[in-house]
């Protein structure tokens, strides 16, 4: 059972006096004492730091550094971001130029596979698949980041307003909180994808549509999370202390409660990046994605590739693998962060 490691630790100190009786036992005893003091300082230091916001993050970072999940996720995310940022430098060819168009005949199922000049072969129009994948990473990152920012921004505003008024606003504040949360619940009642379809129908299919649609769908999740975190922070002693000192309510909400409530929201942002990439692919499949062929995007590529799935499965496999691996990277990182920050899951 989980008690074994601690009981082992406890059984160590009683042994110490026995060995200390030996001739040259003095130095080890002193050394041991010093070590014990050091250990105590370490523990105290840790406790002291734990009181600050930074301490929580630092211990979480330490824990993540030892987690294979976090490392895998971080490596995937780092590679993805580097590829996306430097895409034009990495891509060997123009992703939209049909340079080798004469070598590919989709209606006769004649395709060109990987070769020295085209690392991943050609697509159905004779374009370099590798360049398309690399440039596609950039579009995919853009969709993910903007969608997450939309969800984060609007959600945090709504949830923050609700949470702050519930904690500090008295009876009226509770009413405001109640009203805002009813709206949030209503939004939550609409499935992500259908909310996205709604937005897409209003704005028309484009990359912007996808970003707004996916972002709007995340709003209720962010709002609920931030509100919940703020409510739980609201009953802490430091808030009581700040109020007793007469700090203005707006300042308490923005400077005291908000920074301490951001943890779960930041974790959610990482997870949302994964969802956004997957949802964007689904929207592309529904024909509501990016119609602009000048900017290849993984979701659109995957949706287009379905037509050739039995004759040229590689068209679907590259973007699908890219989407899965990238989403997995963000999910792993987010989950590892959540585990590291959650005191319940600490061992």
């Amino acid at each position, binding site marked *: 059972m989980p008690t074994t490691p601690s009981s082992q630790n406890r059984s160590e100190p009683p042994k110490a006096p026995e060995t200390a009786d030996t001739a040259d036992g003095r130095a080890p005893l002193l050394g041991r004492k010093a070590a014990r003091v050091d250990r105590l300082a370490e523990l105290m230091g840790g406790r002291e730091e734990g009181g600050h916001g930074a301490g929580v993050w630092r211990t979480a970072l330490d824990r993540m550094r030892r987690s294979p999940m976090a490392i895998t996720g971080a490596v995937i995310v780092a590679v993805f971001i580097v590829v996306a940022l430097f895409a034009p430098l990495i891509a060997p060819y123009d992703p939209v130029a049909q340079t080798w168009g004469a070598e590919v005949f989709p209606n006769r199922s004649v395709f060109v596979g990987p070769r020295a000049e085209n690392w991943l072969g050609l697509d159905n129009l004779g374009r370099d698949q590798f360049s398309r994948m690399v440039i596609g990473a950039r579009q995919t990152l853009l969709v993910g980041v903007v969608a997450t920012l939309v969800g984060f921004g609007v959600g945090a505003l709504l949830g923050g307003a609700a949470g702050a008024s519930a904690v500090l606003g008295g009876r009226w504040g509770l009413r405001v909180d109640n009203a805002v949360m*009813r*709206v949030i*619940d*209503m939004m939550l*009642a*609409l*499935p*992500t*994808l*259908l909310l996205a*379809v*709604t937005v897409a*129908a*209003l704005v*028309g299919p484009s990359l912007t549509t996808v970003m707004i649609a996916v972002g709007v769908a995340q709003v209720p999740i962010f709002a609920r999370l931030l509100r919940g975190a703020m409510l739980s922070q609201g009953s802490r002693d430091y808030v009581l202390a700040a109020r007793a000192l007469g700090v203005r309510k707006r300042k308490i909400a923005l400077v005291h409660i908000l920074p301490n409530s951001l943890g779960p929201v930041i974790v959610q942002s990482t997870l949302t990046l*994964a969802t956004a990439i*997957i949802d964007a*692919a*689904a929207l592309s*499949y*529904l*024909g*509501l994605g990016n119609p602009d062929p000048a900017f290849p995007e993984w979701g659109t590529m*995957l949706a287009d590739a*379905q037509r050739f*799935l*039995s004759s040229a*499965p590689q068209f*679907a496999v590259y973007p*699908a693998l890219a*989407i*899965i691996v990238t*989403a*997995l990277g963000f*999910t*792993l990182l987010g*989950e590892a962060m959540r585990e590291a920050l959650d005191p*319940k899951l600490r061992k």
Partner: protein
Amino acid sequence: MLRFIVRRLLQLIPTLGGLSILLFVWLQRLPGGPEYALLPDDATPEQRAELRESLGLDEPVTVRYLAFLRRILEGDLGTSLATGRPVTEEFLTRFPATFELSVTAMLIAVAVGVPLGYLAARRRGTALDFMAVGGSLLGICTPVFFLAFILKVVLAEQLGWFPSAFRLSPGLARTDLSGLVILDGLRTGELDVVWDGLLHLALPGVALASIPLAVIVRMTRASVLEVVGEDYVRTANAKGLHRNTVRTRHVLRNALLPVVTSVGLLTGALFSGAVLTESVFAFPGIGSFIYEATQTRDYPVLTGFILLIATMYVIINLLVDISYSLLDPRVRAQ
């Protein structure tokens, strides 16, 4: 208990009312207004004016909203632009297929997910745990329509183990009682229909189950891990209760509470997934109909669908709350 249900039912009214306002505003805001959305692009201005007149679009907003609300309450969701039939009728004829598919997917997800999540938690850190967690993360990260396509191409088209489309093999005679293939087949004793229907449900069911399955495995695992460390479990063990009693009455019963909630919340994801899965397998349910509606911008169908989903979502979550209070007496007391 009854008071609890009535109170929850009353709480539904503002939510659904707000939703109807949202939808009403959306309909008004459609590109060019409803008279553009409801008529083909080459309609004459006279036709548009006539439609405005007949739809009562020149009336004040409140009058129009009340008329809109009355039509919804009467079950009138308008007419599909693509098929020319009432949206309500289209939904009703397709609903059994989607219902059957969703229930299949949910059954697969719960039947596999709960035991797997439980075992993963009990054998934490083993290969089984690693595979369950890794597999569920992979499941969440795989686009549903891609999984559906892979299943269809590999298992149906190349290996030929399963049919690749529709609910039943063409030409198979069956007695239609309720539109539910499996249930009707069982009631009339047409076992060949049941078997054929199950084969057709297998692949779309698995594809649709992927997301709920992944969520349920992880929820169950996390929840069991939390409950196992609780004092009451230690007490139950210390009392000398049988291991199986502790497992079912103490651990599982408490661990399943959050899982039940997540099953309710997954309904939305299930419907989005149905749109993707059904279109891949040409499954004649509401999902594939909606897929076509997004292609043709069939607005009455899309609004009707959103209303339907939202209503079902709210009702299912009501059922979840009720089952929650059955599982957990503490909820009732509040």
